[in-house]
């Protein structure tokens, strides 16, 4: 059974005078897996709860298969939600939890039993049906929560950070399981997460949210490689920021040499959607720690930007070394295969195609602090 199409039009939600969602437009085709990605407080959970009907909306519409359901109560929306806390009912067994929605639909007892067995088998929970949910492990509880939602064959599956309470190792496993199930069943899924990698691995489409608005949406590769704003670039892992100066030159932008950086030429084709090829002025350049190479502090080719710096800190996260390199009064994080001593002078070589350039308007686009460790290890 294919999932339903979900359309969100100019959706606004406010608590009192505080606006949490400021005009969200989102179209989800049937059977798609969409991840709502953003930092805490960006409105992603509120958006999910507005879709599910737990939060009342102040303006806009939510359409399922073209039908406006904005005023429908949560139980009449054909959706099922999986909660971060799992929200399993401790006074019921695993089977009773999974069968609850079926019982509501007045399904005959044997049919419920069969469906519950089917769900248990699908989620590799065989034999745990009579167990109280309080006796299950975190991973098992997560599966029961998923089973309870899937048992009723919802048109739309809503996932509210369902993996954030799991151990890192189990989480990787469950990611793939959920994705595989969703594809097999053809359900439309909306997944809220603050974990970039989780969103990239699971979703067909990523919606990056910031301050109650959609900052960018698109395929994972697209959002990752062609961020439209400095915020999206930073959130998608291009956490290193340097300030440069650019002016139009030939077919693209020329970057002027500065006290710590060489000059370089960026072809128009290598420019992302975040900057106009005719732009003149200060720019913020975002790049990933794995995009740069460390080498001698001598200028290379025209399409490589070189930063002069000094190793300030070194660590070994596994597979490669990770260095904090001081460039002027900024620090950038760079991954490199070779061992370097702290204090050594190095050149950071950046292919210009890996730079994400954005106009530096001097206000909101202040560089976020570089993140040496990824969030999911915290």
């Amino acid at each position: 059974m294919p999932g339903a199409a979900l359309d969100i039009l100019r959706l606004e939600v406010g608590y009192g005078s505080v606006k949490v969602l400021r005009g969200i437009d989102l179209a989800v085709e049937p059977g798609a897996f969409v991840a709502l990605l953003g930092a805490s407080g960006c409105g992603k959970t509120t958006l999910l709860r507005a879709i599910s009907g737990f939060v009342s909306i102040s303006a806009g519409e939510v359409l399922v298969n073209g039908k406006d359901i904005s005023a429908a109560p949560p139980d009449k929306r054909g959706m099922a939600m999986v909660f971060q806390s799992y929200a399993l009912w401790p006074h019921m067994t695993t089977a009773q939890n999974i069968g609850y929605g079926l019982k509501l639909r007045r399904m005959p007892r044997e049919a419920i039993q069969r469906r519950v067995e089917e769900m248990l088998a699908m989620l590799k929970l065989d034999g745990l049906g009579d167990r109280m949910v309080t006796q299950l492990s975190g991973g098992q509880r997560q599966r029961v929560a998923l089973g309870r939602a899937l048992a009723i064959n919802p048109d739309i599956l809503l996932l509210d950070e369902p993996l954030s309470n799991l151990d890192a190792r189990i989480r990787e496993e469950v990611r793939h399981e959920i994705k595989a199930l969703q594809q097999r069943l053809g359900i439309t899924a909306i997944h809220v997460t603050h974990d970039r990698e989780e969103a990239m691995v699971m979703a067909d489409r990523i919606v990056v949210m910031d301050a109650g608005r959609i900052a960018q949406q698109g395929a994972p590769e697209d959002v990752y490689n062609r961020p439209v704003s400095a915020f999206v670039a930073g959130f998608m892992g291009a956490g290193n920021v340097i300030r440069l100066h650019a002016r139009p030159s030939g077919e693209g932008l020329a970057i002027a040499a500065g006290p710590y950086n060489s000059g370089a030429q960026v072809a128009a084709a290598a420019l992302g959607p975040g900057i106009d090829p005719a732009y003149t002025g200060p720019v913020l350049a975002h790049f990933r720690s794995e995009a740069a190479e460390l080498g001698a502090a001598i200028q290379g080719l025209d399409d490589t930007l070189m930063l002069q710096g000094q190793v300030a800190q070194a660590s070994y996260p596994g597979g490669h070394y990770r260095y904090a390199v001081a460039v002027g009064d900024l620090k950038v994080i760079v991954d490199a295969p070779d061992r370097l001593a702290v204090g050594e002078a190095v050149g950071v070589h950046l292919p210009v195609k890996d730079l994400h350039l954005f106009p530096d308007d001097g206000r909101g686009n202040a560089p976020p602090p570089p993140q040496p460790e990824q969030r999911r290890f915290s």
Partner: protein
Amino acid sequence: MKPALAWIPRGIVLGLIVFAVFGPLANLALWAFAEQWYYPHKLPVTYGLRFWNQVFKPRGDALESLWTSVVIAVSTVVACLAISVPAGYALARLKLPARTLIMLAFLLPQAFPSLAVYINIARLFYGLGLNGTIAGVVLVHTVHGLVFGVWISTAAFAAVDRDLELAARSIGASAFRSFMTVTLPLAAPGIMASAVFVFLESLDEFTGTYFVGVPDVTTLPLLMFTASIAGNYQIAAITALVLLVPSILFMLVVERFLKADVMAKVGA
């Protein structure tokens, strides 16, 4: 090394506490089984069950007032639950400042001198024809019991995670259905405990019953009062022992039902 006699002060303190708690109870037990006990004897002169027969004789005062007490207590529990379950649920889901104010309002009847309150209630009830009726006494007990009822059931409902309800709603349960199948069963232990408290309070209540019920409604505490005023210490002692039984039983029940997470939310 500890001095060998260090246990003595501790022992004395403990002994005094035990005496303070169990001394009066021992006296009660003695009186219940004393047939003759007069000055200057330190202990009863003769023991026996004569007064027990008198108290429990069929159609006796004691059995009748025990029955009245139980009817009043059960009715009070029902009336309290009818108010405190919906009120507790609503309060538990309210934001804090408003919740505190409303819950303090339920404390108000306790804040004034009860004699003054009950005399005026009696006056009012007299005009309404409620004086000397079981219904009148139940009303008075209900107002008194609502404090426990509302405070404890609010805590019990607040201890039920909102997501548990939302999970039921999201897979198709109406608000009423999710309340009946998820919220209420999970809050039930706390609500049971509040019902037990209300029952015991009603069983023991004296002042309000005295002003509103006398002379037509006689509960066990009133009977005990009358007996001891008249010098029938045996009757008073036996009535008191009878009143102790449900208290002890229910305390054991409450202790099993009330979990720490609910207690922590009382008044919060």
